[in-house]
């Protein structure tokens, strides 16, 4: 047997996917190799270090056997089988190189080349072309087939040999902003079509025609890539062995020569990428095949939408101003930090220690977030720290903490491959978490059942080769009633797992809970009128979840962003405990986190009541750890949450804010209230890439660094700590952690206190590990070695924790909690008869600060209001009309889109564009336990309008004035 090849760092294409099975030994070219049963001969050879020539095979796709280049000889078998489609057998003797197969391969290559242009030197795939490589490997030296002069056609010449126009020649399709499709270069290997199906699951591509007429085709006749169903994930581009599907960036910039493995800064899936560069110029991002979250796949945002990092809007110099009606003045770092520190210290001197605070960013690294909360606790000396998780998953923290003992999502993403019944509640994975959605869809195509609980018909409900078994299209705001009714069915029909409950949960609490939930008022028939969900459907869904095998729940902000967000999270946890769907692969309760590091920012002590590791500030033993490390006394009382900060600002008690990488003016509810809060402050420090909406009210702007420009770690929704690596130098001069340190030191120096002295984020991680039990064994050396690790990672779990609660719940016994439905105070009535719910779209991310500054705007250039045709008709609204959307909080205008995705009585929009101002509409109602805003339910009225409202116009005017920058002094 050949020497073992360490897989880490080796991202060779092994030809066909890995298999699991009993070991099988065979001989390949004289070497013995042992592989799992079901492995292809091609993969076995690759494991032995022998690359069999191939064109149509790739190890992220099932073998296809079309190119005939990978033929081999097998002793005792007739002919020359394709090694990609031939599984290994014990004792098999394979020869990958012989006179016969060499001749066949050369013949195959000669035919391929006869219909392929020979413009290699000027081709965009030069040096990165498998066709070119294979021509080299088989030793192709000439090509005997030249077209006769009587008009024979190829696929690559615009005119045939007689000079006539060639109808088989198709021009390049460059409709997609990020890649081109050049049919002239296509060898019809099918890899793009298979990637679209098997990896992405969109089925946008097909092969049209037969034999010589076969062509790759996006969608139907007349479609190009942009108008087709293509979601621009790029899997086809990655799969293409030639220049047929090619990144425009490569065409423009050339093939990259170096690469750095890093982590995507978009959603909570946390995909690993290879950033490929020439010098410090980023050429392309390709998903890293050993990335444990994404397994080599990506979406349009991560792969393509990185142009914001070099966008002209990016601010690269610090700026200050005395008051927000003045234009910005560019200054040096020293002056900006001195100005900020003096103001913050002045505010504290005048209004007290607690009059200032921070907002940490879920887009920044763990190390940066840790420093920002340390800034408020150890420098400002209060607990006024919060993070945008407040407005998304804070109810998850509370709800799962109460029931299981930790806010942690219970699974890794790989787990979905073993689920039998998947329940998606209030989440839209194909748009919000696209790479997870692809993995989910793969499992659903293989037979797992799907239950969708969502007011809106999300794509997953019915998409190619997938149809949800049940779509419970509930009325917004009735989650608790629906989930509790599912528990009613499970308990009253005796479908619960008594053995699991007795072994793992508190039996007395279960008795209380069972009695509560069995009451007739929770029966599906009783809540049908309230929730709009047919009782029979709900019963069938509950039975399926309880009895269909491994049941996995995935949920999003449609669960948390309600007055009863925390209660719904507990109701979900109850369901999982009732059915024993916790503590192993294929099951679990999985919050789909919105932003790249929202998990990490929560872990790092961003909440005002918790120190890093979710430990309450009231605990003296926990405070002692940090007091020892930081040399300060820590306030034992909780500080202010974001909404509390804004309320306190309006009433005059909160005066200074350091806001890193978050745009609260656009993302937080009730924009007018947020604006009033910000306007009342005396020092707002915004630390960001762009002059975002919040910066309209800022006095100090500290330019931030992009994820490409710094070292650190992100923690994704499966608790996976992934390295972020510096790919290029920060364009603004400093990584964000350095800027926070400089601000801290500016304040500490004034106060004559000891300064911070971090020189690398690895040292910050050392401090995190030393103070936080779940991170005890995490360090950069380990992350280099293993790639990533899922916390808790300590002496008890030295290799991390892919699955939580395996032998018992973190809190000991799982706790059932009574979940009574209590209607939100936000009610529809004659003035506001419709319910508005909000969400996301695939091509845009959060407030859009990044994606709006990329070509992604081609898919979504403005927010639109989805309204059911019935509701539209009675209001005289037609497709594309400007409509006025009004609630008790405010009003805005946007265009209408008529669709039956939403039920009558429900309207829907996104909040990616500041001009729409969707959050002018949302109210200040919030989750009872955590103050997470109720984004998902607002009573509204819709009527025709002539265009933007006065508010939108005055807002726009104020924003323009506020963004003025004085020309730098000569």
């Amino acid at each position, binding site marked *: 047997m050949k020497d073992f090849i360490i897989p880490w760092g080796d991202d060779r294409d092994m030809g066909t996917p890995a298999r699991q099975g009993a070991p099988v030994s065979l001989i390949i070219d004289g070497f013995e190799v042992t592989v799992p049963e079901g492995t292809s001969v091609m993969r076995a050879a690759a494991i032995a270090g022998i690359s069999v020539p191939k064109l149509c095979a790739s190890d992220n796709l099932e073998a296809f056997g079309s190119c005939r280049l990978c033929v081999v000889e097998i002793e005792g078998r007739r002919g020359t089988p394709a090694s990609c489609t031939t599984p290994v057998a014990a004792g098999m003797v394979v020869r990958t190189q012989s006179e016969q197969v060499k001749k066949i391969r050369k013949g195959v290559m000669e035919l391929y080349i006869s219909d392929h242009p020979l413009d290699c030197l000027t081709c965009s795939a030069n040096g990165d072309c498998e066709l070119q490589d294979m021509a080299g490997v088989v030793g192709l030296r000439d090509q005997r087939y030249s077209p006769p002069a009587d008009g024979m056609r190829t696929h690559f010449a615009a005119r045939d040999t007689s000079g006539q126009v060639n109808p088989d020649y198709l021009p390049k399709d460059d409709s997609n902003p990020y890649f081109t499709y050049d049919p002239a270069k296509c060898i019809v290997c099918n890899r793009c079509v298979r990637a679209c199906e098997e990896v992405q699951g969109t089925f946008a591509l097909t092969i049209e025609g037969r034999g010589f007429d076969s062509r790759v085709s996006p969608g139907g006749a007349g479609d190009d890539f942009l108008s087709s169903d293509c979601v621009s994930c790029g899997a086809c581009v990655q799969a293409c062995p030639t220049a047929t599907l090619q990144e425009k960036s490569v065409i423009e910039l050339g093939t990259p020569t170096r690469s750095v493995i890093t982590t995507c800064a978009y959603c909570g899936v946390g995909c690993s990428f290879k950033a490929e560069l020439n010098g410090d110029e980023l050429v392309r991002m390709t998903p890293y095949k050993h990335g444990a979250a994404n397994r080599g796949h990506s979406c349009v945002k991560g792969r393509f939408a990185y142009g914001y990092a070099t966008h002209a809007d990016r601010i690269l110099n610090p700026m200050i101003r005395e008051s927000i009606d003045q234009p910005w003045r560019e200054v040096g770092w020293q002056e900006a930090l001195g100005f900020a520190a003096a103001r913050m210290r002045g505010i504290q001197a005048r209004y007290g220690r*607690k009059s200032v605070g921070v907002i940490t960013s879920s887009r920044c690294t763990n190390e940066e977030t840790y420093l920002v909360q340390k800034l408020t606790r150890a420098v400002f000396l209060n*607990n006024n720290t919060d993070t945008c998780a407040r407005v998304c998953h804070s109810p998850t923290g509370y709800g799962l903490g109460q029931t299981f003992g930790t806010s942690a999502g219970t699974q890794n993403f790989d787990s979905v491959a073993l689920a039998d019944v998947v329940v998606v509640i209030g989440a839209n994975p194909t748009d919000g978490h696209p790479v997870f959605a692809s993995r989910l869809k793969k499992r659903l195509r293989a037979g797992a059942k799907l239950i969708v609980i969502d007011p809106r018909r999300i794509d997953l409900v019915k998409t190619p080769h997938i149809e949800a078994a049940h779509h419970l299209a509930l009325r917004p705001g009735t989650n608790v009633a629906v989930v509790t009714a599912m528990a009613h069915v499970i308990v009253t029909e005796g479908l619960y797992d008594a053995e699991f409950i007795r072994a793992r949960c508190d039996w007395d609490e279960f008795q*209380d809970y069972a009695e*509560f939930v069995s009451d007739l008022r929770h029966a599906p028939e009783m809540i049908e009128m309230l929730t709009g969900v047919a009782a029979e459907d709900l019963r069938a869904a509950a039975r399926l979840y309880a009895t269909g095998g491994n049941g996995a729940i995935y949920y999003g902000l449609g669960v948390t962003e309600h*007055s009863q967000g925390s*209660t719904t999270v507990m109701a979900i946890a109850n369901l999982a405990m009732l059915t024993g769907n916790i503590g192993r692969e294929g099951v679990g309760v999985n919050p789909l986190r919105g932003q790249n590091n929202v998990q990490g920012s929560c872990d790092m002590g961003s909440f*005002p*009541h918790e120190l890093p590791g979710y430990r*309450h500030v*009231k605990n003296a033993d926990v405070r002692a750890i940090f007091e020892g490390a930081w040399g300060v006394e820590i306030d034992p*009382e*909780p*500080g*202010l*949450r974001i909404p*509390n900060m804004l*309320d*306190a600002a*309006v*009433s005059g*008690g909160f005066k200074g804010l350091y806001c890193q990488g978050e745009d609260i003016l656009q993302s937080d509810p009730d924009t007018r209230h947020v604006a009033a809060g910000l306007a009342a402050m005396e020092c707002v420090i915004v630390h960001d890439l762009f002059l975002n909406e919040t910066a309209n009210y800022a006095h100090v702007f500290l330019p931030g660094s992009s994820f490409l420009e710094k070292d650190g770690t992100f923690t994704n929704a499966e608790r996976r700590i992934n390295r972020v690596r510096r790919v290029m130098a920060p364009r603004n001069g400093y990584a964000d952690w350095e800027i926070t340190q400089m601000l801290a030191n500016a304040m500490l120096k004034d106060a004559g206190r000891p300064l911070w002295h971090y020189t690398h984020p690895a040292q910050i991680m050392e401090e995190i590990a030393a103070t936080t039990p779940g991170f005890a064994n995490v360090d950069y050396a380990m992350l280099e070695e293993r790639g990533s690790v899922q916390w808790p990672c300590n002496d008890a779990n030295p290799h991390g924790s892919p699955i939580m609660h395996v032998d018992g719940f973190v809190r000991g016994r799982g706790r059932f*909690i*009574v979940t*009574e439905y*209590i209607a939100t*105070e936000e009610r529809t009535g004659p003035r506001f008869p419709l319910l508005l719910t909000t969400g996301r779209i695939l091509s845009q991310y959060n407030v859009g600060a990044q994606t709006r500054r990329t070509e992604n705007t081609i898919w979504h250039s403005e927010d639109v209001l989805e309204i059911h045709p019935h509701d539209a008709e009675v209001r005289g609204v037609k497709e594309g009309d400007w409509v006025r959307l009004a609630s008790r909080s405010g009003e805005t205008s946007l265009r209408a889109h008529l669709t039956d995705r939403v039920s009558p009585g429900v309207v829907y929009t996104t909040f990616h564009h500041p001009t729409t101002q969707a959050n002018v509409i949302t109210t*200040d109602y*919030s989750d*009872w*336990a*955590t*103050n997470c805003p109720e984004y998902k339910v607002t009573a509204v009225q819709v009527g025709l309008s002539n265009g933007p409202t006065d508010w939108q116009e005055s807002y726009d005017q104020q924003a323009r004035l506020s963004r003025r920058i004085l020309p730098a002094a000569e």
Partner: protein
Amino acid sequence: MAADKLLRMANQIATFFATQPGRDQAERVAAHLKDFWGPEMRAELKAYALDHDADLNDLVRRALPLI
């Protein structure tokens, strides 16, 4: 801070704990307020509650002396 909003938030917390089994609901409301609200917010709620007793959820009324 808008004290009426604090009262609304406190009542909302009480509404949840009122549905929970046991006899310690008021204590649990108090514990929640102490865990998640800073002392200034608690003090403001208490001050406001003096003049707005009629608007208080009973559990909030019973929890106030405990915070």
